[in-house]
């Protein structure tokens, strides 16, 4: 076995294990911490692709900002078992049915798609160069890139509006 394959196997085991633990852990803070570990191992997968920029931005955005805010909220809410609101039976049934429907949709999508299975290798292709990445983003994918920024701007304005107190 090559070194890359061993690293890939270990990383995948960590990713899947921490992802499952995120769902199955009772304590919300432990589950958030498992999600952080999951994000780190995904950054490791990007590094295997030699995509350094993507890996580091993934760490900064997901582990460094989003998950910290998430952990922050969970810690402040101090969720305990006693505080858990007892949900009515119809809500639980509805949740279960929607989850099953979602599973059906996802499985159908995976069956219909034609996955391209390429080998994990380092071809020396310059994915990591930010100059190449920037040029591709602002030439080839200009419109989707700008749309994404408009979406983010809208979300930001919405947040500011929501958090603003009503004037009396």
């Amino acid at each position: 076995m090559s070194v890359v394959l061993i690293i890939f196997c270990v990383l995948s085991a960590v990713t899947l294990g921490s992802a499952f633990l995120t769902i199955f852990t009772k304590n919300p803070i432990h589950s958030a911490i498992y999600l952080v570990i999951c994000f780190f191992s995904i950054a490791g997968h990007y590094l295997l692709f030699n995509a350094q920029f993507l890996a580091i931005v993934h760490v900064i955005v997901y582990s460094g900002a989003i998950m910290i805010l998430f952990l922050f909220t969970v810690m402040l809410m101090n969720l305990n078992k006693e505080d858990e609101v007892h949900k009515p039976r119809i809500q639980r049934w509805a949740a279960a049915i929607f989850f099953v429907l979602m599973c059906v949709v996802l499985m159908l999508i995976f069956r219909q798609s034609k996955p391209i299975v390429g080998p994990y290798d380092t071809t020396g292709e310059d994915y990591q160069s930010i100059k190449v990445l920037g040029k591709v983003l602002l030439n080839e994918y200009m419109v989707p890139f700008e749309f994404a920024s408009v979406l983010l701007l809208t979300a930001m304005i919405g947040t500011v509006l929501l958090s603003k107190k009503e004037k009396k």
Partner: protein
Amino acid sequence: MDHSIIIEKGIFIFIIFAITMVMAMYSTLAERKVAAWLQDRIGPNRAGAGGILQPLADGLKLFSKEEFLPDTPNKFLFVVGPAISMSVALMTSAVIPWGDKLHLFGKDIILQATDIDVSILYVFGVLSVGVYGIMIGGWASNNKFSLMSAMRAASQMISYEVAMGLALIALLMMSGTLSLREISLQQHGMHWNVFYQPVGFIIFLICSFAETNRTPFDLAECEAELIGGYHTEYSSMRMGFYLFAEYASMFISSTIIAVLYFGGYNYPGMAWAIENWGVNPANVLGIVVLFIKICFFIFFYMWVRWTIPRFRYDQLMRLGWKMLIPLAIANIIVTGIVILWADGKF
């Protein structure tokens, strides 16, 4: 892969590790000495000549203290907290160019552990992960005050990371690269970035104080409100790790300021020195110059700590969000206009 490069980099990383540890150790002594000097006292002078062995005595004291474990359901996370803080504080030094290059054993040795393309982003990534040590430790202590302090530290670090990143963008627009080595090379011959980006430098400096949790932004350790901060429940070497991580990150952030804005290992007349003295002596002098700059910024941190009182929490947030971020964005716009104007695009 070439085996000699692994040995070379291994030795280099070991040396950097040792230097970071020694600098952090002696920063604790320097802090007490500077405080004593500013307050017209003598400071610690019992251990060794002029107190030179004081950090060793402090370390021995911390090691031999009782390890107290509070009644918490998260013993594992309680132990992991300081470990994360310490390891994250030591990780950043891998991408810093400590000098240009040395010509030893018939080949050029580049004085940097690894030169990745996105090294400045790597620094930011490590910095943003550093909050976890404080948050997890503070939460696992099972103490309301520790939790409050951890929350303060986390929200402060996230808020100031934004302004710090924006201040840096203006610099990156000028340099056109994310590699710290390239940025150092571009500042050769007194083209130090601080002369071109004074506003960005001031924003970056203020944010560095907030990121390292130093006065006037050390609200996480506000003892009048929060007992001892997030390490209230910690004792022995676990608390030592938190304190040590603070000094290590102070050393690293001084290094980053020196490399980004004050020319790194460059000094006036470096080209002349390389021509007349040869590569090795000139570049060794470069390393010494870098360490002089670093020591100045460490001193600056201490100077501010013993001069300026702590801010209030709402003042801290107002400074970060309502003053520094708009200023940083204005700085980016002005830099962009000047770059285009210099290129003759108008």
